[in-house]
């Protein structure tokens, strides 16, 4: 019962966030100017502009447009693209799977490598292993993703011919974009895990656990990592959300037909309804992931569950 209330509260908070994100998306798009002039070109007459505005409903009072937008979004209608004329929701669904593959695999790789590296570095604080891990994670965060992507394509696709660089094909097509995209999550997760673990390992219950004869692995993982896990889980969630709502550079380098390349097209074309739909989609992705992260807090830390 307590848990159901906890979930309900998180879902309600998520809905409020979505409402605010949709509102921001609408008004910021309106502030960016009139898209009809760009659509018709500078030579368009005022009558043509007025006619197009009337067709698109842009001539109505702004609050009428706003309430229509919110009402449609609540019913799952994110409007129609000004350019293709396709339903934005259909376009998003056609692209989301490609982005989701990249985002989830890249962050999973980030967690699989970053967490053990962070734990290793924290358990050897100040020693050679820690310093090497720190340098590598700084390098991982600093390397420009587009450059790394191009180098990987050059070496593994063009030079050795081991892996394809484009989108179409089998699982091998995922390798280079996922590795490229994972470098930043690996570095960030490793650094945060190290920092959180270093703090956790200084706590007295760690000394007490060692005094009771617990194995180093148990002390590190069952106690240290569990207590250090909340910020790491939060970062993993944020990374998935960020990559899901558009890994623009990597999708462009690898010609990956995901949300990121769609966003690039929408902004370039000033396709305002599609941009709004992308913002709302990004907010939905973040809300769902944050809700999952919040629920995971309760699993990882019983105090959160008890407090709720």
């Amino acid at each position, binding site marked *: 019962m307590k848990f159901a209330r906890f979930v309900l509260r998180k879902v309600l908070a998520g809905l409020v966030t979505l409402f605010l994100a949709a509102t921001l998306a609408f008004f910021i798009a309106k502030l960016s100017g009139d898209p009809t002039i760009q659509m018709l070109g500078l030579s368009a007459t005022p009558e043509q502009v007025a006619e197009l505005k009337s067709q698109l409903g842009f001539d109505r009072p702004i609050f009428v447009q706003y309430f229509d937008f919110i009402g449609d979004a609540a019913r799952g209608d994110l409007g129609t693209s000004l350019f293709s004329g396709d339903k934005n929701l259909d376009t998003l669904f056609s692209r989301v799977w490609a982005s989701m593959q990249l985002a989830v695999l890249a962050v999973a790789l980030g967690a699989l490598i970053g967490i053990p590296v962070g734990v290793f570095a924290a358990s050897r604080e100040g020693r050679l292993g820690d310093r090497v891990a720190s340098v590598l994670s700084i390098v991982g965060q600093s390397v420009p993703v587009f450059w790394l992507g191009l180098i990987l394509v050059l070496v593994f696709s063009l030079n050795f011919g081991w892996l394809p660089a484009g989108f179409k094909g089998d699982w091998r097509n995922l390798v280079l974009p996922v590795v490229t995209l994972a470098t930043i999550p690996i570095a960030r997760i490793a650094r945060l895990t190290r920092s959180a673990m270093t703090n956790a390992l200084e706590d007295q*219950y760690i000394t007490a656990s060692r005094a009771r*004869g617990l194995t180093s692995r148990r002390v590190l993982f069952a106690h240290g990592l569990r207590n250090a896990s909340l910020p790491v889980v939060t970062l993993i969630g944020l990374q998935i959300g960020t990559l899901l709502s558009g890994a623009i550079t990597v999708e462009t380098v690898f010609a990956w037909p995901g949300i990121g390349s769609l966003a690039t097209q929408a902004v370039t074309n000033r396709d305002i309804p599609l941009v709004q739909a992308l913002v709302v989609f990004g907010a939905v992705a973040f809300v769902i992931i944050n809700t999952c992260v919040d629920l995971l807090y309760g699993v990882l830390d019983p105090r959160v569950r008890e407090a709720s």
Partner: protein
Amino acid sequence: MTDAEQSIVLQVNHLTVTHVVRQNGGRRRPLHAVDDVSLDVRAREIVGLVGESGSGKTTLSLAACGIGKVSAGTILAGGHDFSSLKGVARRRAHADVQMVFQDPLSSLDLRQRVGDGLDELRSIHPERTKRFTNEELMTRVGLTSDILGRLPTQISGGQAQRVSITRGMMLQPKLLVADEPTSGLDATVQAQILELFESFRRQENLAILFVSHNLAVVRRLCDRAYVMKEGRVVESGSTRDLFERPQHDYTKRLIEAVPGKSAKLAGSR
């Protein structure tokens, strides 16, 4: 080996623990947290280790339990030389030498329920922990079994210290190192915890190294005591001699510094 030597549970010989610290100018210099200290504790004996904060008591305690740094000297605790042990043998040896910490809450994993903590120790030391059930362990330290389902944040400081003592005692150690176990607890709870140590000494032949800066408590509980100052033992002897006929100026000053000392110290044994 004589009987007296056989009954020694903790033998510390010329222990030195040195840390390298940075001075204001950034230069490194060695700091002897413990400097050439020798002491012993025998079975069924409660030995006090007193001194001001920073005198090296806790550093020595951690080293005695095999979890602290040892720069020079030897320690034989519970029959084990931890410096020569590794892996399973070392973990098993830890069961013979247990520690109770000053702050009971910080010595417990706040995300782990009391009962889960006890079960974890059962899984690591199955042979040493089968004597009592968790409920019986709680009864032994004056707690009720409903505590088992609670998180450390849901119990009082006194209850947490009893849980901490239970976690140490369920492994049936030969030596318990208690580092300021009653500071921060109110007088009634303090008395109950001290009574608990007394009963474990009687029932389990337990040897206790009792670290404290509370001289009244040391006077009441301990058979012998060592006085530490700046990492060195400056005086040792039976508690009675130490308190009634202190030899070292530092010991005299410590006793003088106890508020209402005459009433407290005289009436405490």
